[in-house]
């Protein structure tokens, strides 16, 4: 196989994911409405209750709406990662995952392509959210709109890898509801998405520690700093490490020897 072959495959998977996303208008709307409700309703209500002091990367006092923008972008990518996971469980139940798995390219590459395609969709959503926020006066430094792109790629891949890993362990679509309770909500609330970590420390040292170990916190901080044209080295390192770990586990989960399809096969067909 040549490099062209690998690129053609990547292009095909990207095009398919984007086409699917655009044809599922409800999914597009839901992906946007969720963070916008948080931005314009939740943040408005909590603006008075939560004072955010000057912490890096901010150089002056900011409104709460500005503070939670990176967290809401993280939320978009987190939900997108879980949505991809759901769609992969569905694809596996419906069989279309098999078509991907029986193609003559390495499985790790095919899964990485799926991950890239999912990240691309989440970036489309994130930029649409930033445009709508800007239209309502929540703006960021101009450089931030460009500088955030690599951070979005990385965080999108990392959160997508979590989804990929989950999809390799979930046997049935019905089990997916548990993901909402046990993965998405704890991941989101035990992070710096809605409040700075020093605020959490004032309330609970244990929860503060958990937040510090949460890879989602670091993805959010990576985005937050990038939106101001700055690099957060610790957040970058932990996000990269988390991506490598989750992706490696997901690839193992989808290997022919380990595939849960194998465990389930006793129930199927002739």
């Amino acid at each position, binding site marked *: 196989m040549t490099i062209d072959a690998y690129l053609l495959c990547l292009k095909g998977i990207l*095009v*398919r994911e984007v*086409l699917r996303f655009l044809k599922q208008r409800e999914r597009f709307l839901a992906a946007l409405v969720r963070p916008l409700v948080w931005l314009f309703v939740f943040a408005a209500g909590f603006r008075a209750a939560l004072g955010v002091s000057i912490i890096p990367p901010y150089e002056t006092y900011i409104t709460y709406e500005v503070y939670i923008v990176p967290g809401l972008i993280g939320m978009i990518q987190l939900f997108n990662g879980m949505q991809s996971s759901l769609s992969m469980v569905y694809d596996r139940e419906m069989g*279309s995952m*098999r078509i991907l798995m029986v*193609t*003559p390219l390495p499985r790790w590459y095919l899964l990485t392509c799926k991950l890239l395609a999912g990240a691309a969709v989440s970036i489309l959503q994130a930029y649409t959210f930033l445009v709508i926020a800007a239209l309502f006066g929540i703006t960021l430094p101009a450089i931030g709109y460009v500088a955030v792109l690599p951070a979005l790629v990385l965080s999108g891949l990392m959160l997508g890898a979590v989804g990929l890993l989950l999809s390799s362990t979930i046997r049935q679509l019905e089990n997916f509801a548990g993901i909402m309770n046990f993965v998405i909500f704890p991941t989101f609330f035990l992070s710096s998405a809605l409040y700075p970590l020093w605020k959490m420390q004032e309330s609970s040292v244990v929860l503060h520690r958990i937040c510090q170990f949460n890879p989602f916190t670091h993805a959010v901080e990576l985005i937050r700093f990038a939106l101001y044209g700055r690099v957060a080295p610790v957040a970058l390192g932990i996000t990269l490490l988390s991506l490598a770990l989750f992706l490696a586990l997901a690839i193992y989960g989808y290997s022919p*020897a380990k595939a849960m399809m194998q465990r389930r096969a006793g129930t199927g*067909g*002739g």
Partner: protein
Amino acid sequence: MTVLRSDTPALDIAGLAFSYGGRFALQDVSFAVPPGAFTALLGPNGAGKTTLFSLITHLFTGGRGTIRIGGWDIRRESRKALAQMGVVFQQPTLDLDLTVVQNLRYFASLHAMPTRTADQRIEAELARLELWDRRDDRVRHLSGGYRRRVEVARALLHRPSLLLLDEATVGLDVPTRRRIVDQVHALARDDGIAVLWATHLIDEVRADDDVVVMHGGRVKARGRVDEVARAAGCETIGEAFARMIAADPEGEGGGERREGGKGGGGGSP
């Protein structure tokens, strides 16, 4: 199309055994499918056909024995082996929200086909399966029969030397089933594609086909349809199939093998 030496079976399975935990699903399965042969893999539900397909397509791995596709070992050279096969799974695998052409382009890209070549191949296969007029329809709007034919067209895009179909006509009405069976027979006859057609429906097997009868994870008989029927002391393969199942309702007995015919002589590593 991948060119094979005439003496290289498109599919060669030897001594295959596989189990889920302590329960065996396949035991000592051996047979071969030569180029251009239509081989029916006949067995009741639970015979092990789908497990066998999952091993051939490398969705599963493990167990004992060897599977070679065009001479390539599926475990050691899986990518070369996979490049030679087209697969229609028992479960539908098309993306319902995409059009016929979009589904086929996606598959072509997975096989690294350049856009121009892909479009030529898509046109040729859709025309062959009389689907060209429906190319821009969303798959969601197609009937079950059309969807199956789209899957056959998709499986042929990269010119495989071996076409695997696992219960491809389940849920379809009789005329549609007959049409698909005819079209797949034509692929073997006219294009020299080796076909392995898994089914539990006896009326899909023709007198001049090769047949491998599976039950309880074992090969009960193999050879040309008329020879297998005769060897079982029956006039038709239907009777022979019913007799084999009735003789061992739970599928636990040992496999008795009958060889002969163009598809029956394989099985050597």
